[in-house]
Every structure is written in C-alpha cells, then in structure tokens.
C-alpha cells in the first residue's frame, strides 16, 4: 500500500476533504462538534464557514490550505494532516490570532458574540503554541484506509518539513482518550511533555475528552 500512496501539499481543490478532516478531528470519534456548539451553529452551517475560512487562503494556522499535507491513493485523497511553523507567517502573528481573525471575519457577528458566555468552559484546554515550533493539528484518514500506515507517512513528511524549516521542535495536542493517535506519535518519537485538564462540568459538551496531552519531539 505504501508504494501506492502519494503525499503532497493540499490545494484549493482538496477543500471538501479538508473540511471533512477538520470536522472529524474536532469530533475525534465522538458526536461532539464543539466548534459548532461554541458559536451555536448547526454542523452544516459550521462546515460552510470552515470552507469559507479555508478559501481565504491565510497561511500559518490550522485553517490554512497551505498547512495541509494530503495522502492520495489512486488519485483519491484519503488522508490529511496540517502542520506549520508557529509565528512564521506573513504577518508574524500567533496562529491562534490568525485563526480568531478568520473566525471573527467569516462567522456572523451574533454567533461570534454567543461564544462569550462559554469562554470559561473552553479556556482550560486552549494550549498555547510555542513560537518557532512546528505545530501539527487536525488529522483524519478515511476509515477504509486506516491501519495502513498512511498517517505515519504523512507525519514523516511533516517531520521532513520541520527539519527543512529548522523548527525548534514539533508539538501536537492529543486527547488522552485517543490511545491509537498517542501510539502513532510515540512511534514517530513524540513524548508526552504536558497534560491539561478541565474540571468544568460542561467540558464534555464541547470537547471529546477533558484531558488533553501535549506531545513533543
């Protein structure tokens, strides 16, 4: 299988798969689409805004088409994973601010304002990204292609990019209830270096789990 897999940078033509990737990664195996809930939007509405954000082609965050590498099998995109060097975008802004600007720009004002009452719920699991590090975020593989080493191949390609960009180190956030992902990162040399826990009673409505790990290599 690995010989038949081609890893390449994502393009605007891949946007629909990237939207699927972001939604699946946000849900992380649950039915919980916290991003939609935070802004009181339906899943379909939030999908259309994620697409709009990707179409803005802002580089340097997890809503950037240019951050994504995709895996193709026989011409079909089957997996995607985003990665970028933190803070080294055109405007030298933290990716979290680029993301916030995109969300604020693309979503209706009233929906953005609805998030205010929920800040205390989501804040404990917002992990700050370190400038100059290579960040990995939002991975997804079509279920028919899981367990075939495709995600490992994309991570290898990101590791090569991180080396070529002379990134300080690589960082990824993973929920503690996702042992498969944790094992995949461990195989690629990542180690758990931080643990973030939310004790807010409503956490489970907005996140797949209440404990998030920081892994680095």
């Amino acid at each position: 299988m690995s010989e038949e897999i081609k890893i390449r940078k994502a393009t605007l033509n891949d946007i629909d798969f990237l939207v699927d990737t972001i939604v699946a990664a946000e849900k992380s195996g649950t039915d919980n689409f916290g991003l939609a809930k935070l802004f009181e939007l339906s899943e379909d509405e939030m999908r259309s805004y994620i697409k709009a954000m990707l179409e803005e082609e802002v580089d340097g965050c997890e809503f950037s088409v240019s951050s994504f590498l995709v895996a193709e099998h026989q011409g079909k995109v089957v997996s995607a994973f985003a990665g970028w060097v933190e803070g080294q975008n055109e405007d030298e802004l933290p990716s979290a601010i680029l993301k916030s600007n995109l969300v604020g720009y693309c979503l209706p004002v009233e929906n953005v304002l609805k998030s205010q009452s929920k800040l205390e719920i989501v804040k404990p699991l917002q992990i700050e990204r370190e400038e100059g590090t290579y960040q990995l975020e939002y991975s997804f593989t079509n279920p028919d292609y899981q367990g075939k080493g495709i995600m490992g191949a994309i991570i290898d390609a990101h590791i090569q990019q991180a080396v070529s960009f002379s990134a300080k180190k690589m960082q990824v956030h993973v929920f503690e209830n996702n042992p498969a992902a944790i094992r995949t990162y461990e195989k690629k040399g990542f180690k758990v270096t931080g643990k973030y826990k939310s004790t807010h009673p409503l956490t489970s409505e907005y996140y797949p789990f209440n404990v998030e790990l920081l892994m680095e290599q």
Partner: protein
Amino acid sequence: MNRNEIIEKLTAIFHEVFNDNTIVLRDEMTAKDVENWDSLTHMLMITKVEKTFGIKFKLKELNRLKQVGDLISVVESKLQ
C-alpha cells in the same frame, strides 16, 4: 468621532471583554500586556469593536493589527 472619543469607546470594550476596569489604552499596548487577552477574547473584542462602531474590518486589516495604536488608527480611518 475624534480619536479621544474612539479611545473612550474602545476602553469600555476592553474593560468588558478582558474583564478589567483598570485597563488604560496605550498605542504600544499588545496582547502580552493584558492578562485575559487570548485568541478567544481577541475575537470577541474585534467583533464588539465592529458592532459598536458599525464597521467591518478586512481580513488583511485584522492580520496587520500589532498593537492597540494600530486598532485605534484603523477604526479612525474607517469612520472618516
């Protein structure tokens, strides 16, 4: 609306969003100077600025805001 009036309205937004009534806006102030200024509150602050002043920022304008002085200037230019 003159610059002082803009600063007055912005100050009220900062006090409410960042939950600190002692914030005094300075041109060179950045997110690092304000305790609760993170990505989420940043998004809310920008949205409240747009709503309060009846303006809409371009994405490029948002991504070029480095400090509070930039925000004051871009609001001022949009109200002219």
